[in-house]
């Protein structure tokens, strides 16, 4: 979230798409309904009518996988009717930037495409520069090669009629949505976009989000109260676990993982430190070397920086190590050992049968959980013969959240501390203790016996425990960072001397010379003289109270900023665009309100002022996004499994760069009469993820005991299915049973003149428990992914449904 949960109340228009917030984030809805009470309008766009739709002022259906045409039509509507927030677009976005001659777009492909590699040369999407190296701009937005005009041409094809034909949304509904949301382009109005996995789990997932970003920038909705791009994340600490770098491509704090092409720290910094010629761009990632140096010192305090860097494993350039590739490699026998820590991939991974088969290729697996899972017990699951499965499996019992202490970060980036309410049950232990004790044993073995490259293991700072128990406070202090050597630095206008061990007060003071450590730079400031995440103080200034900022309650990264890019909420002089709900304001040479995006004066001060989008190299919101793998502007491609033979917008039926695999478990069926229906997976209120915790909680299981499939009355009649009967769903990858829920919440779509049926299934069930509860919806889902993130396309794929 660029904003936070309470901030939803400040919105004039709440656009929920690809999310069923009322059922899956029920408490978020408290703030949606409160905004409605204050007069806000709510739009819900979804393939299915849900309890979220029930509260919507405007509800529109769309076929799963057609979001980009839906948004493309909105962009076209905004531009055609000149509803943009002009000053914002000119001053704060790259709409005025002029593209180099190399940029082109023809019939679904951007320039720079290499058909053999199925990849783009992104240098073809660069901006034109003047002789000083500065980007050429046209603030009138009239130059035919400026981003604004290129975008206008690009989306001109997405007229209402064409959009309606592909999405299945009636033109009248499109008109209502477009008209309602475009009204937030007025400077004094704000609109927020809330989304969840309905937007991301597609082979165009990132471009779906990009499309929303473009809309929010055109309407001036970024940085303001009641605005922003807000992901409703699905797990209590999935924000934090991402911040702490538990992904192959990033170290903690969003520092790219080094590849073999970056042999030294110097080389890494050369390749990963953006440079700008725009004097007013803060170009915050220009500080990246300080953050990597501080991370290296948090791992290896006694080694020089180059040595610490040499200890980090290097990725092979161009190779994908993401989730789906990991399991594909596992199936190919690439791994001896596997940790499934606090996770249930046998049920959560698209193409579950492939995943479960992959686990038979392992020599050993460690699984850490609270309950039996489909992963830990895969060897005795459906279709498995334990006598033929070699994998040695260890199940380690972990404590529940209130049996241990530590922090988690919510979707609004609030880092909140949890306390111990009871000791760990039985023999279970907090994950922290399990990790600590296991690595102690590994270290002992290497100390005693030596082995392959023991140095990083031997030299890792493993001071994470007190009296042989994992100590979250000690680790939280290291994540915050502290000084390693004495250092005198300018703080405000005065010099301040820091001694070794002193906490670093904020990341602006982190150093690139090895004198500071910080495990995760964005958390610098979270544990200074006290544990900021544990704060329970609701006091706020009158200005902060107007927008429910609560800056003294817990702590938010970065630097306790509650609404990011908030410099875009004020005009170039620092005056709030929305005086009745100001986020920040420049008053008598000082910022008031939220923590601003940097201390500098407003951007009208050409000497000292800075542009608002401080994390982008050139300081501007990126309507044109040249960094993505599949194009700088969102373009419609059908899901890899789809019900139509030709894409009316171009000759490219599917995303030409999508992540795909070619084994026998990866067969796709588009327009295949054996699999005629679009299927989407989703969640219910009473269950969570693969259901391991909720299926084992009696109250919740009683409420939602079995796998079901929602379908329209028309489809049920066609297939002779009655409500409550057992049905079989099948895809090219497998089949499963479900109870039929025949409901008008689902209706057929008319797409390109044909009737297209869609069905929906929850993915919370699994064979371990309850008996006769059903199995994972992911058995049906394809292992294909977005070319930027690798997220699987579980929101749109093709199935058959028949009576059992």
């Amino acid at each position: 979230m660029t904003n936070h949960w309470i901030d939803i109340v400040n919105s004039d228009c709440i656009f929920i798409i690809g999310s069923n917030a009322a059922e899956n984030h029920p408490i978020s809805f408290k703030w949606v309904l409160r905004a409605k009470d204050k007069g806000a309008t709510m739009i819900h766009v979804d393939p299915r009518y849900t309890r979220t739709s029930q509260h919507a002022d405007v509800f529109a259906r769309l076929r799963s996988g057609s979001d980009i045409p839906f948004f493309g039509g909105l962009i076209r509507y905004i531009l055609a009717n000149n509803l943009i927030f002009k000053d914002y677009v000119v001053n704060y976005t790259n709409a005025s930037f002029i593209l180099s001659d190399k940029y082109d777009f023809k019939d679904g492909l951007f320039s720079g495409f290499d058909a053999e590699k199925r990849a783009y040369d992104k240098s073809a999407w660069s901006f034109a520069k003047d002789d000083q190296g500065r980007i050429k701009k046209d603030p009138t937005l009239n130059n035919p090669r400026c981003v604004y005009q290129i975008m206008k041409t690009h989306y001109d094809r997405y007229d209402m009629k064409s959009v309606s034909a592909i999405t299945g949304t009636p033109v009248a509904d499109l008109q209502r949505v477009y008209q309602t949301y475009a009204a937030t382009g007025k400077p004094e109005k704000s609109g927020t976009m809330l989304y969840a996995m309905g937007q991301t789990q597609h082979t165009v997932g990132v471009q779906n989000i990009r499309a929303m970003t473009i809309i929010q920038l055109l309407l001036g909705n970024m940085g303001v109260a009641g605005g922003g791009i807000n992901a409703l994340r699905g797990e209590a600490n999935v924000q934090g676990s991402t911040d702490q770098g538990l992904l192959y491509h990033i170290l903690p704090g969003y520092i790219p993982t080094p590849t073999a092409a970056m042999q030294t720290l110097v080389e890494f910094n050369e390749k990963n430190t953006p440079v700008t010629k725009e004097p007013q761009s803060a170009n915050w990632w220009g500080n990246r070397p300080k953050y990597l140096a501080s991370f290296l010192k948090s791992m290896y305090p006694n080694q020089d920086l180059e040595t610490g860097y040499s200890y980090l494993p290097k990725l092979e350039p161009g190779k994908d190590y993401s989730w789906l590739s990991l399991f594909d490699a596992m199936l190919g026998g690439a791994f001896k050992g596997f940790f499934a820590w606090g996770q249930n991939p046998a049920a959560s991974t698209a193409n579950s049968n492939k995943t479960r088969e992959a686990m038979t290729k392992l020599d050993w697996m460690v699984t850490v959980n609270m309950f039996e899972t489909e992963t830990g017990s895969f060897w005795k699951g459906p279709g498995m013969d334990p006598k033929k499965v070699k994998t040695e499996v260890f199940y380690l019992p972990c404590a529940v959240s209130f049996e241990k202490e530590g922090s988690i970060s919510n979707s609004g980036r609030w880092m909140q501390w949890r306390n111990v309410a009871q000791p760990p049950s039985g023999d279970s232990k907090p994950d922290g203790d399990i990790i600590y004790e296991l690595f102690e044993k590994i270290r002992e073995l290497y100390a005693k016996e030596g082995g392959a490259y023991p140095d990083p293991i031997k030299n890792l700072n493993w001071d994470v425990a007190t009296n042989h128990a994992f100590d979250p406070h000690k680790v939280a202090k290291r994540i915050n960072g502290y000084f390693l050597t004495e250092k005198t630095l300018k703080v405000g206008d005065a010099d301040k001397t820091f001694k070794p061990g002193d906490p670093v007060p904020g990341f602006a003071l982190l150093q690139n010379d090895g004198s500071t450590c910080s495990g995760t730079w964005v958390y610098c400031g979270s544990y200074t003289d006290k544990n900021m995440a544990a704060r329970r103080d609701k006091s706020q200034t009158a200005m902060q109270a107007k927008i429910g900022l609560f800056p003294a309650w817990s702590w938010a990264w970065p630097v306790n900023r509650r609404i990011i890019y908030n410099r875009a909420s004020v005009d170039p002089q620092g005056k709030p665009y929305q005086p009745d709900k100001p986020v920040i304001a420049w008053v008598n040479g000082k910022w008031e309100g939220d923590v601003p995006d940097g201390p500098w004066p407003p951007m009208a001060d050409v000497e000292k002022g800075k542009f608002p989008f401080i994390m982008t190299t050139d300081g501007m919101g990126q309507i044109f996004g040249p960094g993505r793998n599949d194009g700088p502007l969102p373009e419609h491609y059908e899901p890899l499994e789809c019900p139509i033979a030709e894409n009316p917008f171009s000759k490219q039926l599917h995303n030409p760069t999508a992540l795909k695999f070619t084994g026998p478990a990866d067969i796709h069926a588009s327009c295949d009469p054996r699999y005629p229906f679009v299927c989407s997976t989703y969640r219910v209120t009473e269950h969570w993820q693969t259901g391991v915790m909720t299926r084992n909680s009696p109250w919740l299981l009683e409420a939602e005991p079995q796998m079901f499939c929602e379908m329209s009355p028309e489809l049920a009649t066609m297939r002779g299915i009655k409500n409550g009967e057992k049905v079989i769903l099948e895809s090219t990858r497998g089949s499963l049973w479900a109870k039929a829920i025949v409901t008008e919440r689902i209706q057929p779509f008319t797409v390109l003149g044909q009737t297209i049926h869609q069905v929906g299934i929850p993915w919370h069930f699994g064979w371990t428990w309850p008996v006769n509860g059903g199995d994972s919806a992911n058995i049906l889902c394809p292992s294909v992914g977005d070319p930027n993130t690798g997220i699987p396309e579980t929101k749109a794929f093709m199935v058959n449904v028949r009576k059992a």
Partner: protein
Amino acid sequence: MEWNRREFLKIAGATTAVTAFGGLGFDLTPARAEGQAAKLKFTKQTTSVCCYCSVGCGLIASTDKDGKGKVVNIEGDPDHPINEGALCPKGASHYQLGKNDRRILKVLYRAPYSENWEEKSWDWALDRIARKVKESRDGSFVTKDAKGRVVNRCEGIASVGSAAMDNEECWIYQAMLRAMGLNYIEHQARI
């Protein structure tokens, strides 16, 4: 967080008074008051945050025997600015994660080709896992890639997890995995 019990009871009492004759035709006040008192008598209140979705709702857990025993109740934290005491069904069922006879509270081991789990001690399991990790790491460690570039990576072990861990646990987990040289480090955020 330590609650002042007298203050809390005063608030609870005020609430029951207001709802005493809520149209049910009979008076639930005594039963409700008794219920409230039972929860608070000899219990200690601790604040926490829900473990399910990412809204981050505040919880109050009540632990019996003045905090030395087990959690006997979990409810929404009325002081928390996001949920203001409210919880969804998942949050409201939190207590059942602590008191739950389906939890597996022993270390289990499944030998190759075995049809059963067997109980083991922590020491036995951690020793054996450490041994397996070392064997797999030493056997699959790659110092240089095909182009002769130093890569220092362990190719034979992969990890997934976990957004269910606290920040501090996630951080030391990544530290351990990266010190061992793993590249295949993934978790829920990807999917």
